[in-house]
C-alpha cells in the first residue's frame, strides 16, 4: 500500500480520491464487488460478442440500405469472423479462447430463451434474441455528443471524408436513379448516414477488443487469479495501454469491392477515437432515455451544454429497469441470459431473488462500469501525469488535482448531477 505524502484531500469524495491515490478503484475493494463485476463482465462479454460483429456488419454491409429490416440477422460470415484479439490467429491475443463467435452466444441464438427452435423471425419479433437496440443507442450517443476529443470527429467533416463517402454512396446506389436523385437533392443527409455508419464501425471495433478482455478476466477470476478489485482494474489499465494504438477505420463492402471511408492509413487509434469517446458518451453523458430519468425541458432540467449531460451508466437510476421504453433494459435482458452460476446464486439471496434479478444485475453492471471508468482515469493519469509512487510531492499534487477534477464531475450540483451520480451508492454493498 502506498503512503501518501500529501495532507488529506478536502474534496467531498476525499475517501475515494485517497483510494485512487493508493492505486485503487472508485469501487471499494471487497470480495462481493469483485465477484459482481467479473461475473457481469462475463455476462456482458457474450452479447458484446454479438454486438461488435453486428455493428461491423451494419457498417460494412448494410451501410445505406434505406430499409434495413434485417440488419440484426447476422450472416454466418460475421459469426465466423475472427476476432483480432482472441484465438490462435489473433494479431494481439488477449483471450486465450477461440476467435469465432462464443459458443454460449451460438447456443442462445439457436433456441433463445424459449429453448425452442422456431423460425428466426419469430425469435426476433418476440425479442427472444440479442437486442441490438442498446448497442445502437450507444453508437448514437457517441455520434451525437461532440467535442469529446480525438481526431476522427473533425476528419468526418473534412473534404477527404466527403469524397470517400461520395464514392461509396455512388457505388452503393449504382443503377438506382431514385436514390442517386435523392442524393443529388439531399447530399448532406446521405453524408450524415455515412458518418453514422462510420460510428457503427468505431463502436464495433471498440467492442471487438472489450469482448475478449472481459472473457479473459472471467477466466482469470475462475482460475483464482484476481485477488481484489484493484487487480481487475489494473488488468484493464494494462489492457488499455496494450490496445491503445490499434487502428480505428471504416470500410464498406459494395458488391465484393471494399471502399474506405476512414482508411487505416489515417492512423486513428483505438484509445483516442473509440475508448475515450465511448466512456465519455456512454458512461457519463448518453441521452436522456425516456423513463430512465424524469426530465423536463420546460423546467430547464435538460442541459443546454452537451458536457453537462449526465444520463450515462454512472448516473442512471437502475430501479426502473424493466419498465417499458428504457433501452438499457434490453441490455440487462441480454446479460441476464449469460450470468455465471455464482452470480445467479448470489442474486437469489437478496431483495426479491429471481424476480428482480434484472435490477440487481443492472446495479452490478453499474459497479463494474465504475471500475472500468476507474481504469480509464488511472490510465489517463499514467499517460499524462505521474506514477502513484512518485517521490516528488508536486507531482503527487498534480495527480491529486487530476483525480479531484475527475471526481468533481460527480459532485457538480448543476442540473442535479451530484444527486444523480451513483458514486456514493456503490460505496455501500447494500445498494442492490
Amino acid at each position, binding site marked *: 500500500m502506498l503512503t501518501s505524502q500529501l495532507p488529506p484531500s478536502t474534496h467531498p469524495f476525499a475517501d475515494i480520491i485517497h483510494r485512487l491515490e493508493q492505486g485503487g478503484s472508485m469501487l471499494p475493494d471487497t470480495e462481493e464487488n469483485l465477484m459482481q463485476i467479473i461475473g457481469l463482465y462475463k455476462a456482458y462479454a457474450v452479447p458484446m460478442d454479438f454486438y461488435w460483429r453486428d455493428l461491423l456488419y451494419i457498417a460494412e454491409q448494410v451501410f445505406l440500405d434505406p430499409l434495413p429490416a434485417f440488419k440484426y440477422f447476422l450472416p454466418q460470415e460475421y459469426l465466423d469472423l475472427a476476432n483480432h484479439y482472441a484465438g490462435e490467429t489473433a494479431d494481439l491475443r488477449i483471450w486465450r479462447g477461440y476467435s469465432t463467435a462464443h459458443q454460449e452466444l451460438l447456443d442462445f441464438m439457436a433456441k433463445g430463451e424459449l429453448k425452442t427452435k422456431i423460425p428466426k423471425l419469430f425469435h426476433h419479433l418476440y425479442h427472444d434474441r440479442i437486442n441490438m437496440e442498446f448497442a445502437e443507442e450507444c453508437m448514437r450517443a457517441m455520434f451525437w455528443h461532440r467535442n469529446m476529443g480525438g481526431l476522427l470527429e473533425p476528419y468526418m467533416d473534412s473534404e477527404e471524408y466527403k469524397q470517400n463517402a461520395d464514392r461509396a454512396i455512388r457505388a452503393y446506389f449504382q443503377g438506382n436513379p431514385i436514390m442517386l436523385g435523392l442524393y443529388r437533392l439531399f447530399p448532406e443527409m446521405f453524408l450524415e448516414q455515412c458518418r453514422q455508419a462510420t460510428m457503427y464501425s468505431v463502436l464495433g471495433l471498440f467492442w471487438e477488443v472489450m469482448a475478449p478482455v472481459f472473457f479473459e478476466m472471467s477466466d482469470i477470476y475462475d482460475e483464482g487469479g484476481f485477488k481484489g478489485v484493484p487487480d481487475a482494474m489494473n488488468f484493464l489499465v494494462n489492457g488499455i495501454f496494450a490496445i491503445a494504438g490499434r487502428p480505428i477505420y471504416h470500410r464498406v463492402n459494395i458488391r465484393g469491392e471494399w471502399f474506405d471511408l476512414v482508411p487505416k492509413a489515417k492512423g486513428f487509434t483505438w484509445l483516442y477515437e473509440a475508448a475515450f469517446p465511448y466512456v465519455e458518451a456512454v458512461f457519463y453523458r448518453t441521452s436522456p432515455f425516456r423513463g430512465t430519468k424524469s426530465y423536463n425541458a420546460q423546467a430547464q432540467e435538460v442541459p443546454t451544454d452537451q458536457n453537462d449531460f449526465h444520463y450515462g451508466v454512472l448516473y442512471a437510476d437502475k430501479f426502473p*429497469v424493466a419498465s417499458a421504453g428504457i433501452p438499457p433494459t434490453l441490455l440487462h435482458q441480454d446479460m441476464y441470459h449469460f450470468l455465471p452460476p455464482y452470480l445467479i446464486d448470489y442474486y437469489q439471496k437478496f431483495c426479491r431473488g429471481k*424476480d428482480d434479478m434484472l*435490477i440487481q444485475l443492472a446495479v452490478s453492471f453499474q459497479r463494474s462500469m465504475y471500475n472500468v471508468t476507474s481504469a480509464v482515469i488511472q490510465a489517463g493519469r499514467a499517460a499524462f501525469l505521474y506514477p502513484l509512487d512518485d517521490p516528488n510531492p508536486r507531482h503527487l499534487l498534480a495527480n491529486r488535482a487530476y483525480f479531484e477534477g475527475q471526481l468533481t464531475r460527480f459532485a457538480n450540483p448543476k442540473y442535479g448531477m451530484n444527486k444523480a451520480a451513483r458514486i456514493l451508492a456503490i460505496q455501500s454493498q447494500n445498494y442492490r
Partner: protein
Amino acid sequence: MLSALIWLPVLGALFTGILLPKWAKVSAIATSSIVLFLNLLLLRQFNLGEGGFQLQENLTWLDSIGLNYSLGIDGLSLPLVVLNGLITWLVVCFDREIEERKPLFYVLIFLIHSSFSGAVLSLNTLLFVLFYEVELIPIYLVIAIWGGKQKNYAAIKFLIFTAISGILILAGFLALAWLSGNGGALFDYQALQSVSLPLSTQIILLLLLLGGFAIKAPFVPFHTWLPDTYVESITPVVMMLGGVVAKLGTYGLFRFCVSLFPDAWSLLSPWIALWAGLGILYGAVTAIAQKDIKRMVAYSSIGHMSYILLAAAAGTPLSLVGGIAQMVSHGLILALLFDLVGIIEKKVGTRELDVLNGLLNPLRGFPTISALLILGGMASAGIPGMLGFIAEFLVFQGSFVKFPIPTLLAILGTGLTAVYFVILLNRTCFGKLDNATAYYPKVFRSEQIPALVLTSIIIFLGIQPQWLTAWSETVATQITDRLPSVTIAQTPSPSSFRK
C-alpha cells in the same frame, strides 16, 4: 336454510375455537367455504318474480315480550347476505396478517358474520336489535386486540358510537311496538308494515331510527368514529367493517325508515336528499385533504354511503334499485381498496402519501397491486364498465327527477372522487421509487387473490349489471308502492313541517 346461514358459522366458530392454531385455519376455511356455497345455493332458490319475504322461518321464542325467531329474505337482504358470505370467505381464506391468537380471530369473524346475517334476515325488530347489538362485541374485540397503535381509543370510540346507535334504534323499535300493539308490544316486521301511525309520531320514531342508522352507516355528521376505527383496524377487519358491517346502517334505512314510516319519510325526504348531497361533498372534499391513503379511503366511504341515503330519499324504484346496488358496489369496492391499501402498508411500512411513490415499478414495486388499485379507484369514481358506475348512475337517474339539486351535488361529488383518486394513484403508483428505501418484499400470489376476485366481480357486474339489479327490482317496487304517490316538495320549505 336461512338458519343455517346464521348458525353454521357459529358452530364453525365454536369448533374452530377449540382447535389448535394450525388446524384452526383449516376449520375456518372449511366453514366459510360451506357458508359461501350455501349463499350461492340461496341465489338458486330465490324466486325473482315473487314479492315479499321468501324462505321464511318462524319459531316462537319469548312470545310474551314479542320476541320471536322470525327469518325471511327478500331482494334487499339477499345481496347483503351474499356479500357477507363472500367478504368473510376472502378474509378467512387469504388472511396473512394474523400471527397471534388465530383461533380467536376466526371465532370473532364468524360471530360478526352470523350477527350480520341474523340482523338482515330478521323479521322481528327485537331480534334485529339483538343481532345488531351482539355484533358490537366481536367487532370491539377484533379492533382492540389486533388494531394499530391507537386501537384502544378506536375500539372504545366505535363501541360508544355504535352503542348509542343501538340505543336509539332500540328506543325507536320499543316505541313503535308499544304504539302499534293493541295493549301488547308488536315487533313482527310484517305486521308493523300494516300499522298506520299519526304523522307526528312517525316523524319522531323515524328520527330516532334515522339517528341510529346514520351513526352505523355512517352519515355526516355522525361519522367521526369511522376514520379512527377504519384506520386503526387491520386489513381483514376493516374489509369486514367497511365492506359488510356498515351496510347494516343503510339496510336499516331501507328496511325500517323508508318502509315503516313512508309518510314521514316522504315529508322529510327533501331535507334528507340535501343532507345526502352535502354528505357526499363533505366526504369527497375531506378525502382530498388526507395524507394517509387509508384515511383517504375511509373518508371516501363516508361520501359514497351518502349516495345510498340520496337513493332512499328519492324513493323511486330506480333509485332504490340503485341504492341496493350501491350497497353491494360500495362493499366490494371498499373491501378491495382496503385490501390493497393494507398490502401496500404491510410491504412498504407506511401509508403516507408523501412518502409512497413509484409502486407501478415492474420489478421492485407492486405492479399487479398498483394496477388493481387503479381499477379500484376507477370503480369508486364511477368509471363506466365497472359496478360503481352502474350503481351511481341508477341512483342519479332515479333521484334526479325528484331532487335535482342534491343529485347535482352528488354528481359533483363523483367528480371530486376522481380528483382524490387521481391524487392517490399519481402519488402512490407513478413517479420513481426512492433508491434508498425501495427494497420492499414482494407480494405473493395468495395475497393478490382477494383483490383479483373482487376486481373480477366489480368488472363482471359492471358489464352485466342485470345479475345484480334483478334481485332487488321487486322489493324496490314494493317499497316505492308504500310511499305516498305525491311528492311533498322538491325543495324543502319550513311550512311543510308545520303541516
